[in-house]
């Protein structure tokens, strides 16, 4: 079963390989310099994001009221789901008030850090709550200062830090438009090379081989990711010792600025939409499409996660999901696009295929973000249950599912949230603007920035709505009795 799942994930690459029927050595082009630059950029982006994410998590710990913290978390995660161009333009606008934007290497790192820090802050906050409390208490007893305690906790959670590092590293390594626009003359990444080979030259043999090289490299580098440590306690009170209200204020201000800048033109856009019947109609159709796509994605992620939990412990599947990064959007989109022609099919089916493709792209990242650590915490329990003679199904029903229920639905919610902002894959599969993100992209391409801003915000609110539904469902207790 684990192997079937693995084949399912790598199917886009296999499909394109068969369709292309040729293979050109990736070293036939000057890949070395690009690779070095790409690695350096991804390592720096990931390092900065992980450290800032930790600081952000300390900030989150200072917000004690649950509902406020949840709102804050959604807020700080927003840059991670906004289209890259939106984040970039917001940053450019912000920098224009004070100084010029640092184009080049540090510009790329900055945009990546802003994009991923919020997401990592939320991940760090959960890790701190489940694993760091005793360490914090011990440090406090020993009289360590807060900053020393934070350093100690960071060192203690190094395996988790390495996993989060890899998560951002993989995303930054496969980044496409940001390095291209912000990177200046050194903006070449492997993904850009792949896109150029495919769409610029029509050299699919080279595009596929570069994509394989990219996957292989990321898989090899994933071996640096460590097995996470066990959860020990959940004593949030002790964590106040390392909380940083200043960090919370800083990240809140930063996100307000970014989101505020991306709101420029919102009211003008809203007026235009309300006075344009066809646009309003498209907006409503797109809303339906986004809701359906998000629901599909959440459902797929839910069932896929259940399957992964059911198959746990499967060393091969775990290793695969930790190390695998889906081929570039161009390759995945073409694999699905080449086998699915939307002409003649109802929108629902196109949304269905888009959702399958999107899950293929994001699921390994979701697993690295949450799944791997959560499953690892159950390792001992599962071993004991196995010794007690429980079947796989019984272990799943009585041990793992009840404990991971909320995690699984949280992951499904994050998947739906991400899906609400997807336009890259959707554009390659669907020939029409059937979701809000696709509509926003079309409007961006036709001068309509104000209207696109409104549509993009509707799209994000759709994602937040689906995320909250999934998260609420995750709070329903699953009966653990046999």
């Amino acid at each position, binding site marked *: 079963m684990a192997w079937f799942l693995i084949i399912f994930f790598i199917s886009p690459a296999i499909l*394109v390989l068969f*369709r*292309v029927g040729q293979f050109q050595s990736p070293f036939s082009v000057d890949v070395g310099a690009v690779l070095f630059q790409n690695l350096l950029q991804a390592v720096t982006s990931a390092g900065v994001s992980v450290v800032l994410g930790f600081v952000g998590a300390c900030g989150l710990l200072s917000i004690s009221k649950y509902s406020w913290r949840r709102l804050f978390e959604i807020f700080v995660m927003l840059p991670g789901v906004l289209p890259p161009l939106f984040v970039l*333009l917001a940053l*450019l606008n912000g920098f*224009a008030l004070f100084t010029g*934007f640092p*184009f080049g290497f540090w510009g790329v790192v900055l945009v990546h850090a802003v994009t991923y820090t919020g997401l990592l802050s939320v991940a760090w906050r959960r890790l701190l709550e489940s694993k760091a409390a005793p360490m914090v208490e011990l440090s406090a007893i020993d009289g360590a200062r807060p900053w020393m305690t934070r350093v100690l906790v960071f060192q203690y959670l190094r395996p988790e830090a390495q996993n989060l590092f890899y998560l951002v590293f993989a995303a930054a390594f496969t980044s*496409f*438009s940001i390095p*291209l*626009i*912000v990177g*200046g*003359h050194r*903006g070449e990444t492997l993904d850009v090379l792949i*896109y*150029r080979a*495919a*769409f*610029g*030259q*029509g050299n*699919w043999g080279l595009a596929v081989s570069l994509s394989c090289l990219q996957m292989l490299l990321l898989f090899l580098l994933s071996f640096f990711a460590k097995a996470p440590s066990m959860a020990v306690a959940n004593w949030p009170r002790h964590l106040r010792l390392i909380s940083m209200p200043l960090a919370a204020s800083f990240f809140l201000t930063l996100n307000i600025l970014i989101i505020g800048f991306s709101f420029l033109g919102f009211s003008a856009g809203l007026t235009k939409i309300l006075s*344009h019947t*066809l*646009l309003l109609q*498209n907006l409503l159709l797109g809303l339906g499409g986004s809701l359906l796509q998000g629901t599909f994605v959440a*459902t797929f992620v*839910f*069932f896929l996660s259940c399957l992964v939990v059911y198959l746990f412990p499967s060393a091969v599947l775990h290793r695969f999901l930790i190390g695998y990064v889906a081929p570039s959007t161009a390759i995945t989109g*073409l694999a699905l*696009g*080449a*086998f699915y*022609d*939307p*002409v*003649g099919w*109802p929108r629902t*089916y196109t949304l*269905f295929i888009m959702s399958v493709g999107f899950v293929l792209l994001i699921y390994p990242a979701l697993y690295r973000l949450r799944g791997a650590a959560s499953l690892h915490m159950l390792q001992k329990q599962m071993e004991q249950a196995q010794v007690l003679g429980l079947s796989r199904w019984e272990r799943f029903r009585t041990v793992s599912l009840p404990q991971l229920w909320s995690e699984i639905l949280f992951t499904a919610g994050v998947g739906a949230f991400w899906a609400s902002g997807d336009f890259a894959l959707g*554009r390659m599969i669907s*020939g*029409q*603007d059937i979701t809000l993100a696709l*509509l926003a*992209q*079309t409007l*961006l*391409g*036709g*001068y*309509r*920035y104000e209207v696109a801003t409104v549509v993009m915000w509707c799209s994000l609110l759709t994602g937040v709505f689906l995320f909250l539904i999934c998260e609420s*469902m995750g709070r*329903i*207790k*699953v*009966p653990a009795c046999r």
Partner: protein
Amino acid sequence: MSGKKLALILFFIAMVVFAAGLVYRFSQLKSQTIERAKAANLIVFANSSFIDAYGPGLDLKAEFEKSCVCTVEYVDVGGSSEVIEKLRLDPSRRVDVILGLDYLQLKRISEVITFQKLPATDIPFVPEIKDRLWVQFRAYDWSPMGFIYRKGEVPVVSSLQEALTKWPARSVSLQDPTLSAPGLVWFYHFLMADPATDYADKRKNLPARLDNWKGLVHSYSPSWSGAYGIFRNKQAPLTYSYLTSLIYHWQQEGDRSYQFMPFAEGHPLHIEYAAVPETCWNCNEAKRFVEFLGSAWAQKTLAEKNFMLPVRADVVLPDVFKELPKLKLMGTEHVENFVNERQTLLDIWKAHR
């Protein structure tokens, strides 16, 4: 049973029923879909700005359907490069008309797809494009391209050579010529702007000229919208775009600060073509649709909603079009060389950008 348990059970049942229903309908529709597509639709590949709520696509569709027992179905496949590669990977893909084919990519697309010859037409074409007409490709709109700026933000120059000395560093937001059609037009413009008259000399000078030019480049974006977005957000005072982009700012926004910089060496044209692939299903209607695009009514709609110039000489346009600057246009003498050497030239650009 508690309410939460009941909700959980209902959730599971809903998911299972939903998945089963979907699989069932999918299997049913699979057999119907070919018939459905065959039925009456005219499948038209177009780009997103053509199809969107503001674009000309919907009006053209409504008008054409009045005289046709078919339904025009637009499919947004992106730019010329995306069309070429999608059809290269899946030659059996159903398409009757392809719109938005770019002048500089016609050779490349002809290597991948065979097109039907279009019937002779009596369209009175504007003189500017008369030497760029083909039997398989029908031009339906066009515009010269060049640098757009906002008044007062950058010195006005009269040639690319002069720009090298007068424009500030990092001032031009451009499109990547390997990824974007307007980017390729810019690159052609750059090559042709070399004062050397001989093509071989232009090519020889290219690396050094690119080295001189790169200090002026703010960024290369993967698409026109990316580059224009940077310009619109005032991150760069200049961008490369269509002369007709001014119409949008002047007419829709009432903002006259946006201007076009006429160059003495002339300007290249971006011409959009329609074509009917050999593999079309609804070929007669496809050819009628292409012919319809050349009608006076369609040309006016295209000009007003696609913000491009009509290919017909007899179209009466709003006054704002008359206010566009009159430009010297580049000739076609080196186009073939450029198209034939496209990849080599782009490799030079990559090494010296």
